[in-house]
């Protein structure tokens, strides 16, 4: 996703030319998403899962529910952890190795959206105060990269969490005993991230890999179902005026309910 200079500049010129006609290289209009297909419960060994396809972007979301000790300052609260894995099969330029900046940003932006919306009831994840709590791990596994990972992972996380179940522990003589029962996690909100990308003077949604490569700046805004903003993240080496920020917020706010509805609809 780093700019490969000469090719990028030519590509940028072409993409800009087409954008100025109100269309995009693949024929979409500026604020049009590619088809979003989400299948949940696709993996049996994870407590919750979803497969997301957004155009050629393809990824899996796995939710595992484990146990561990709570943080010292929140002894009664369970923990949620988010991680993104850029697998080397997803793009020719992606190599195996420790997480890079982009994968850290992806996981952290989606995580902040879920966390700010207080999607999970962390008290419900408590087993023995100060000693044992549930830890909900959300892992994004990118299988094919063609842009807009934040939006795809954000929608996928909701789909996977909605189907996720946690094992039930009984307390016998002060000790936790694992039972066969599993109960669904309580999902309190459905925050949806929408990334608005600026290329030249145009604002577009759902960029593919080419568009993402030549973008000037991206502003990701996560909305909950009440229209509140849960997270914002500006990325990319350009500035935005306050009017442009307002414009991005309005574009994203109008789109978020549609993506949320699509996420829910494909769950059936």
């Amino acid at each position, binding site marked *: 996703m780093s700019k490969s200079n000469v090719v990028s500049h030519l590509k940028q010129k072409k993409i800009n030319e087409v954008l100025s006609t109100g269309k995009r290289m693949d024929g979409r209009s500026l604020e049009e998403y590619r088809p979003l297909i989400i299948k949940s419960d696709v993996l049996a060994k994870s407590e919750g899962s979803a497969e997301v396809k957004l155009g050629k972007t393809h990824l899996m979301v796995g939710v595992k529910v484990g146990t561990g000790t709570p943080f010292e300052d929140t002894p009664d609260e369970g923990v949620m952890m988010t991680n993104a894995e850029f697998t080397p099969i997803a793009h020719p330029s992606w190599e195996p190795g420790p997480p890079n900046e982009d994968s850290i940003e992806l996981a952290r932006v989606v995580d902040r959206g879920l966390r700010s919306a207080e999607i999970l009831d962390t008290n419900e994840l408590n087993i023995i105060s100060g000693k044992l709590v549930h830890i909900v791990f959300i892992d994004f596994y990118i299988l094919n990269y063609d842009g807009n990972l934040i939006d795809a992972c954000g929608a996928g996380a909701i789909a996977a969490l909605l189907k996720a179940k946690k094992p039930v522990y009984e307390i016998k003589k002060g000790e936790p005993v694992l039972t066969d029962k599993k109960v669904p996690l309580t999902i309190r909100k459905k925050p949806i991230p929408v990334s608005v990308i600026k290329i030249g003077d145009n604002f577009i949604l759902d960029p593919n890999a080419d568009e993402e490569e030549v973008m000037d700046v991206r502003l990701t805004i996560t909305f909950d179902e009440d229209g509140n*903003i849960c997270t914002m993240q*500006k990325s990319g080496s350009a500035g935005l005026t306050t009017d442009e920020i307002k414009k991005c917020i309005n574009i994203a706010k109008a789109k978020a309910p549609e993506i949320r509805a699509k996420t829910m609809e494909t769950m059936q």
Partner: protein
Amino acid sequence: MSKRTSKKKQWIRVDGRQYNELREVKIESGVLPNADGSAYIEMGRNKIICGVFGPREMHPKHMAKPNEAVLKCRYHMAPFSVDPRRSPAPSRRDQEITMVMRFALEPAVFLERYPRSSIDIYVEILEADGGTRCASINAASVALVDAGIPMKDLVSACAVGKIDDRLIVDLGDYEDKKGQSDLPLAYMPKLEKVTLLQMDGIMKTEEVEEAIKLAIDGCKQIYEIQREALKKKYGIDKTKMEEDTPDEDDAGDTTEVTEQ
């Protein structure tokens, strides 16, 4: 301003500040003899030192860009900067801040003047008290100027948060942890562009718009402090500066201001 002031005048924050009052900010430039440029900032109880090296040869070479310089950043917290001690290894948070800091500073630097080279910015947090990423950007931007790197503008940064459903400027550590939301923002006051914008917590759209306005007001105050720090080092007579066009003359003799 008037509407906000009248509504929120009586409410006082934990440390006695008004809702739109910054912590005391002290900036000194040229504090590291071995660095090409450097700055030390105290923003409240934050103590941050920043060194800039370059433009110099890119290492490793294959990372160099043929058409412009690469701005390399590192945000790093000292193990003793927080309670309890933290590992000196970079965390995921540090890596993300490193990245957004780079995005915040890049638009201000004439990178195209130094193809194939790198400009390295190292930020060390000696003591953290909330808002370290903003304070780091403030220091880094002064250090870049101190290094003699041509800049389009200074970058000033400041956060706005929400606590008790009220918006407050420049959150301290307590306000950061107990507050409902946090919106760090960096701004180039002459070019009127926002170069860093993050937010977490819950805010209404109108609150975000209001918060952005407040943060920009805060950035403008910090901008003046940054300019003073540079003028102090480079010995520019303030009275003389006001005679010739002050709008054209940015912080220090090494800085250039261009129209967009």
